């Protein structure tokens, strides 16, 4: 079983549209995992049935029980996140500031502080329109720990792929370079970097590749909207050669990305000249590289 993780560093490069297309092409051979839990959009293209959903708890939140609190002020003194303040003579916790470190509960002399486990979102196992399975999630508002939810989604996808003997897991990875993307990348057999030829696209590609390199992962790159800026596009290609990253393909700037999305379709389902074939060729190329 191989795990293909698609990431982009910056948003708006067409990452999700491309990932969903691979998922469509892979059909029954793949389990899909949407690890972009912060902006989980793949369900809009793959129409999961949300068959099974479960709440996800991770991290803690302090709560002071006023009946037991003697207002001694110790908790407010030690809290490094200024999460405890006095309102109308009572010590209370601001849930948005509390990091859930649990320090206050440990030192409260009257055991007045309880650590509540936090519901950070929900995750789902669904059947999608290709007949295959997708694991996805919805992060709660302002929730932390998307790294943990991402890991949950990935591990479930892995478990399902093993149980059902699937050949591939295709992961829509998280943006940025922090915890969520680190969780998305862990265990990857191959990383697909989707970028666009803009100064910020190149900048973010280099930054996220540093992370990929740090984990010693094999990678390939798709340059989307390559004709927007030929010069930067060439710079990206030069960077790929330098770093020995497989140059998978160049895709032109094409409104078809948006048209397909607006119809709730992957690009390979909607009729478009050339684009469909290029994506299909890319998928074959990736499969060849990792097998």
């Amino acid at each position: 079983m191989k795990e293909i993780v698609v990431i982009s560093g910056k948003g708006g490069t067409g990452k999700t549209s491309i990932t969903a297309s691979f998922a469509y092409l892979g059909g029954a051979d793949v389990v899909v995992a949407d690890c972009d839990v912060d902006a989980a959009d793949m369900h809009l293209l793959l129409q999961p049935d949300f068959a099974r959903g479960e709440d996800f708890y991770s991290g803690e939140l302090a709560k002071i029980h006023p009946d037991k609190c003697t207002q001694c002020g110790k908790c407010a003194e030690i809290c490094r996140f200024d999460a405890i303040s006095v309102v109308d003579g009572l010590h209370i916790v601001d849930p948005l500031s509390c990091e859930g470190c649990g320090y206050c509960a440990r030192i409260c002399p009257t055991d007045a502080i309880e650590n509540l486990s936090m519901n950070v979102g929900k995750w789902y196992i669904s059947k999608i329109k290709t007949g295959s399975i997708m694991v996805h999630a919805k992060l709660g508002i302002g929730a932390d720990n998307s790294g943990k939810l991402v890991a949950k989604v990935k591990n479930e996808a892995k478990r399902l792929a093993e149980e059902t003997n699937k050949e591939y897991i295709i992961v829509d990875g998280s943006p940025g370079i922090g915890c969520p993307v680190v969780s998305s990348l862990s265990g990857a057999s191959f990383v697909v970097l989707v970028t666009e030829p803009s100064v910020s696209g190149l900048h973010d590609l280099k930054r996220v590749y540093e992370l990929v390199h740090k984990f010693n992962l094999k990678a390939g790159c798709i340059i989307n909207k390559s004709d927007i800026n030929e010069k930067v596009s060439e710079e990206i290609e030069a960077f790929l050669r330098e770093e020995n990253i497989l140059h998978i393909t160049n895709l032109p700037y094409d409104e078809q990305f948006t048209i397909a999305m607006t119809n709730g379709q992957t690009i390979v389902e909607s009729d478009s000249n050339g684009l469909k074939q290029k994506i299909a060729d890319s998928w074959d190329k990736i499969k060849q590289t990792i097998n």
Partner: protein
Amino acid sequence: MKIAIASGKGGTGKTTLSVNLSAYLAENEEVVLSDLDVEEPNSGLFIKAQLLHEEEKYKMVPEWKEDQCTLCGICQEVCNFHAVIQLGDMIMVFPELCHGCYACSELCPADTLPMVPKKMGMLKHLRNDKLSFIESRLDIGEEQAVPLIKQSQEYVEEHFSDDILRIYDSPPGTSCPVIEVTRDVDFVILVTEPTPFGLHDLKIAVETMKELKKPFGVVVNRHGIGNDGVLRYCEGEGIPVLAKIPNDRKIAELYSEGKLVYNEVPEVKQELDKIITYLSTLKQGGVQ
């Protein structure tokens, strides 16, 4: 006044709006633009300014001093983030996981886990005439964005007086880092695209702003693509649409070269004017 420019998902044009709006405003008044998308700070690619100051940013993490440790295991037990672990007769600290709560350090009975500074990123302070630009950049491998965001906000608050307009380029999404940026601002501009992805992510961002009880408005970028779902949603919810920036290949090309667009594309300037008018009405009306 403090304004955050945010979006439910990345790549909707948040940075384009931040840099163009700031540069345009700075033609007439003092403006501070602070790029708090510390994982992927991009605004700096569009702003030509002179570096005034740069500093390394640190967070506090525990450091194990072997000699006095009794291997009591308390540190491991109290760390909710598994950032200190006892391995045989050693205590290991994983600084990238540490949230800096001081629990292990202060509860260590042998006083042998002092907190020490560890570099997590860089802050740069640049200036071009009336535009001040603060860029914060998280080191690769560092997993916590929030501490750097907090310190950058403090830097801005210390160095600029309240009457100067401050624009924060927020990270994308709706998780912790975004809350950190938006919770103290007076107004939030949510940038979106008129597509199903854009609408889906906008709805989550709107819920977040409602939860935070923040006044906000929407700017539609690449207006003309997709469908009218976003506009109908905003109308239905009574959300002000401050501007509609047209979809134009020229804008994408200028952006790709790292150039500002408002002087090249008159429609963009017109739309920015609408935002500025809205903001000044807000300011006069007093922001709640």
